[in-house]
């Protein structure tokens, strides 16, 4: 248990915002050290400083007891420190292999050797269970697979210290378990791991020690995980603001009491809808006021339902209706029909990162739907943004550039921009990706409220607990068919994953 | 015109010009076409780039050597580029006539129809001096749209030498670059006029120069003299209006006609092309003859009738106007 990496008294200010106010952290070999904290607590900032991407305004970083400051992630890697950053840092146009070896790609006769790359990568990819063809472009991969590629890249640097900033935010359960296994193995080899995540139980299960950040200050320092329980951890993160029973599998009472209105005409109805290669004879209906979950393994087809709803896929046969109107022809059409489409890939489909928050929150309602007239009323839009910010507890100001917000707060901005359209059908894909437990609970209450206002909510999530907490029922997909539907009273992570894997003997894919 | 495959036993000939968008290219092509009509039995194909671009024209010329092998007329603005392709064409037995710009030594072209551009410069200078007070003092500003173009360089040289010889007290500035794009050309000249307030005369050697200078003189009620070369529609109007005191006309139509006619005749009558430089005259266009020139410019037919006397004279005895190729300038 020798000390590998130590940060002491780190201070980082962004203009007025103090991201880190004298933060200490110690990484020891052969242990997983968890770093938790609410959105905007300063976790990623800490990581950026450790990895040399950012210069601290104060404090020091020591490697093996010697003060260091890395020039870049490459430099850090050279010193045995590998980073998986929160915002994916992959090259979409390059192949998986090329992404796995950004600097030290193996050569044969002076030329890149895909063969050797594949050889070297194979064991790591197998460990991670990444089964995609290694010569596809990373940009064509699912977000989850991209996250695995990024982890694989870090592992291939054979680091002594491995820093993971929310590596599992987009991963399905199976992948998470695999990653845990990999990390455990690494630890036994004496590697130091810093693990940042908002899945607290998972964290407690995996890590030996935990540090909690709040507003850039350490509220729990280097505590053995067996000496701390979930609630005290949450309190340490959120302080007084801590909502009750966070993360517990048992869903909040608020959700339970609500049910769809049986009388009302369905907001979304699929009648034996088939899409070539994707959906076979899929039928279901979602009434206004209902929250219906859609679950399945990769490629099971539950997401293809969303493709139909947003106009990307057209039914080959059968009828899909939104508020009685036929399925939309385009995103634009769908949005006009009253659908809100919250993608899990906020960076690509959610936000204009180089624009201030208020422009993002008004993007759909004003620019997409043309509401609010042809003239810009900046003050009005900024006020609306501020209102959403208060409602969703977004850390930041309407005038802040969106890329200066923390990951979780960016995710909230995405939700805000869709809520601004007063949609009648809300399609959510991983709505709480990378959001802290407090905000997650808030978000769930908000979603429940939206449903109670008579909106139909369709949700898919890598986080089965989330589905179990939120949904009135969950439709299970396999091979493009609806194979099961689980009512509220039977909903739990276990029942869901059993239903999803039914007939697969537990294997994935 | 005929198709590349030479229908009806007629001759397939071609002419390449440096720029199909500019007046000079047009007049030469029209002259050539008129000649091919009057000589008869010829499919004449005219090619040229839309902007002055030597290599682009070179490529088009290369293609003419495969499609129209009975005879070619080559007008260009940078002869060196055509050295090898021309030599290759001649080598393949294709008769090639150089038009408007003297061929390089290596090009194997032995017959050249063109003006004495130096002389054109001299003409412009003499016309200017005629309109200046005796033994004048002051500055005269020269402009050249495309430096590095032999024909224009020669004209500038003619101007400079003549002023140096006849009006030693006059300070001759330039030539400055005045660009061929009409708008840029105007900007350049307007700045030159302002930068040289009180100049005696502003003289250009390109076509844009003439009408842009005229416009400036008109707008600024200038007392200075302005003139240039070439006879595009606008310039002729300005001469008529007395803004340009003259314009020097290289008589492109005539050059095109004569070159083509002689080529066709030599091919038809299986007699060799004349050897050397057929020194074509230039014409001073001023108030006295402007109307006839404007009339001439109305159509190729009009031009043909206008030039007919000269044409018959030259074609009757080309040797009379022949000079050694080496003297071409």
């Amino acid at each position, binding site marked *: 248990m020798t000390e590998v990496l130590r940060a002491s008294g780190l201070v980082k200010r962004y203009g007025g915002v103090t991201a880190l106010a004298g933060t200490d952290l110690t990484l020891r070999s052969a242990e997983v050290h968890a770093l938790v904290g609410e959105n905007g607590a300063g976790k990623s900032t800490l990581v950026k400083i450790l990895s040399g991407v950012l210069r601290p305004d104060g404090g020091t970083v020591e490697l093996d007891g010697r003060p260091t400051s890395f020039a870049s992630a490459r430099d850090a890697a050279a010193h045995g420190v590998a980073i998986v950053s929160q915002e994916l840092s992959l090259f979409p146009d390059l192949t998986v292999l090329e992404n796995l070896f950004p600097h030290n790609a193996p050569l044969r006769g002076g030329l890149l050797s895909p063969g050797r790359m594949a050889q070297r990568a194979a064991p790591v990819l197998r460990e991670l269970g990444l089964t995609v063809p290694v010569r596809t472009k990373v940009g064509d991969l699912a977000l989850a697979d991209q996250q695995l590629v990024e982890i694989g890249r870090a592992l291939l640097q054979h680091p002594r210290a491995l820093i993971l900033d929310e590596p599992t935010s987009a991963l399905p359960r199976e992948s998470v378990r695999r990653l845990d296994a990999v990390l455990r193995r690494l630890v036994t080899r004496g590697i130091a791991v810093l693990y940042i995540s908002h899945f607290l139980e998972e964290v407690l299960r995996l890590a030996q020690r935990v540090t909690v950040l709040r507003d850039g200050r350490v509220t729990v320092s280097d505590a053995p995980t067996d000496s701390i329980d979930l609630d005290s951890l949450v309190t340490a993160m959120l302080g007084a603001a801590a909502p009750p029973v966070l993360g517990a599998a048992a869903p909040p009472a608020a959700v339970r009491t609500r049910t769809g209105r049986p009388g009302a005409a369905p907001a979304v109805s699929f009648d034996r809808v088939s899409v070539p290669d994707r959906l076979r004879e899929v039928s279901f209906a979602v009434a206004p006021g209902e929250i219906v979950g859609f679950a399945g393994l990769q490629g099971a087809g539950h997401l293809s339902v969303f493709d139909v709803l947003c106009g990307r896929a057209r039914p080959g046969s059968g009828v899909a209706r939104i508020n009685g109107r036929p399925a939309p022809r385009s995103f634009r059409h769908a949005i006009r029909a009253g659908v809100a489409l919250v993608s899990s890939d906020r960076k690509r489909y959610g936000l204009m990162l180089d624009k201030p928050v*208020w422009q993002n929150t008004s993007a759909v309602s004003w620019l997409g739907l043309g509401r609010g007239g042809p003239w810009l009323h900046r003050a009005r839009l900024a006020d609306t943004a501020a209102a959403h910010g208060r409602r969703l507890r977004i850390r930041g100001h309407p005038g802040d550039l969106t890329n200066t917000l923390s990951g979780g707060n960016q995710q909230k901005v995405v939700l805000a921009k869709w809520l601004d359209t007063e949609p009648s059908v809300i399609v959510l894909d991983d709505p709480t990706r990378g959001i802290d437990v407090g905000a997650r609970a808030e978000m769930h209450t908000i979603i429940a409220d939206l449903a109670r206002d008579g909106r139909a909510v369709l949700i898919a999530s890598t986080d089965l607990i989330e589905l179990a907490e939120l949904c009135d029922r969950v439709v299970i997909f396999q091979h493009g068919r609806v194979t099961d539907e689980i009512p509220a009273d039977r909903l739990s992570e276990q029942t869901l994953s059993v239903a999803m894997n039914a007939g697969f003997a537990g294997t994935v894919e | 015109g005929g198709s590349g495959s030479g229908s009806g036993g007629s001759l397939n000939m071609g002419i390449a010009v440096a720029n199909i968008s500019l007046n000079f*290219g047009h007049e030469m092509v029209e002259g050539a076409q008129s000649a091919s009509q009057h000589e008869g039995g010829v499919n004449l194909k005219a090619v040229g780039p839309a902007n002055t671009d030597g290599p682009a024209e070179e490529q088009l010329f290369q293609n003419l050597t495969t499609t129209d092998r009975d005879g070619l007329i080559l007008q260009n603005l940078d002869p060196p580029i055509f050295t090898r392709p021309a030599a290759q064409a001649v080598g393949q037995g294709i008769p090639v006539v150089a038009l408007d710009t003297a061929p390089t030594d290596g090009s194997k072209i032995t017959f050249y129809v063109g003006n004495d551009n130096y002389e054109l410069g001299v003409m412009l200078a003499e016309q200017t001096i005629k309109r200046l007070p005796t033994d004048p003092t002051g500055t005269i500003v020269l402009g050249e749209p495309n430096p590095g173009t032999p024909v224009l360089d020669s004209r500038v040289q003619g101007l400079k030498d003549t002023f140096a010889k006849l009006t030693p007290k006059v300070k001759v500035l330039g030539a400055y670059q005045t660009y061929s794009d009409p708008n840029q050309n105007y900007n350049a000249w307007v700045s030159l006029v302002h930068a040289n307030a009180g100049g005696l005369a502003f003289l250009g050697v390109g076509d844009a120069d003439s009408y842009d200078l005229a*416009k400036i003189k008109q707008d600024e009620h200038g007392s200075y003299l302005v003139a240039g070369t070439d006879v595009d529609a606008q310039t002729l109007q300005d001469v008529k209006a007395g803004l340009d005191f003259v314009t020097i006309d290289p008589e492109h139509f005539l050059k095109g006609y004569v070159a083509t006619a002689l080529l066709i005749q030599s091919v038809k009558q299986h007699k060799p092309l004349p050897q050397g430089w057929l020194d074509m005259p230039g014409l001073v266009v001023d108030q006295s003859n402007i109307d006839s020139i404007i009339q001439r410019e109305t159509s190729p037919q009009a031009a043909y009738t206008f030039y007919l006397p000269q044409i018959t004279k030259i074609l009757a005895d080309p040797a009379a106007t022949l000079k050694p190729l080496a003297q071409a300038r």
Partner: protein
Amino acid sequence: MSDRLSDTLSADEPGPPASDGAAPDTAWPWYRRLLPDELGVGLVLVVLVVGVGLAHPDFLRSTSLLSTAQSSVYVGLMACGMVFPLAMREVDLSVGGIYALGIVAGAMLIHAGLSPWLALPVVLVLSAAIGALNGAITTYLRLPSFIVTLAGAMLYRGVALALANGKQIGGLPENNSFFTLLGGNLGGVPTSVWVLLAATVVLAVVFTRTRFGARVRSIGSNPDAAEFSGLPIARTRILALGLSGLMAGVASSLGLAFYIAGDPTVGNGYELTAIAACIIGGTPLAGGRGSVPGAMIGNLILTSVATALVFFQVPINWTTFATGAVILIAVAFDSLLRRSRGHGFLPRGRNPFRRG
């Protein structure tokens, strides 16, 4: 990210919009808030003009300055229009061609006896339609606007050449009010300069204060997010390229009124100058941001350089070299200026296009 300032006309909003005043003031020292982006290029322009003026006072004579302004009008108008395609990651290389076609078409109509004042709207509508056509082809054939407008430039200039039959179209009724008014002066200043100023103000407002402008910038900022947010991408692209075409049409109308002749050979290479002006003025090729006044000033810089050189009697064979050198120095100076204000350029690679 805050390498630019938010102000009334430069539309790229980092910094605290006065309206919401939310961002902590400490983030924005006063001197930054006082220096809008256009001020950078503006300063460069002033330094350039004053510098030349000190060496050659003639250059500062109003006639000389006005004629410089006047000669910057045509490309200036194109640059103002070009801001819109560039800000949405498109480019319009056809403005030169549209300019030539507009001039020739207008001249022919007038030559054919149509009243110049009636020819004007025809030219404007025509050029706007051509621009929109660029947009439609780009959209529906799924081609890059670079290729479409490059080929378009040849198409449109080609039509002009064919119509004019390679000759200029002169002999227009030069005493008609169209020529005397649009081609002449108004209050001692060339009418075309007034038009340029008006166009700059109007387009600046359109770019920064309307939904259309916001759509243009949003699409340029993140095309996928824009489409996924239901923005009418195709329509916005067609409008943006149509607007760029329209400005080329305005330019050709003024050119026609000034030169009182239709010459199919005008406008070669104007597109590159216009784009350069935009970039110098703060509209990166990467899109998402832009400044119409910046583009106008950027073009003024380029024109002044060309004019100024004449006063220095640069030998003809060194003109080209000198032009390139001075331009390079001017933009370098601007870049230093920005950096000295601490919000110049991000570390290389962060966003390679967001410079200029």
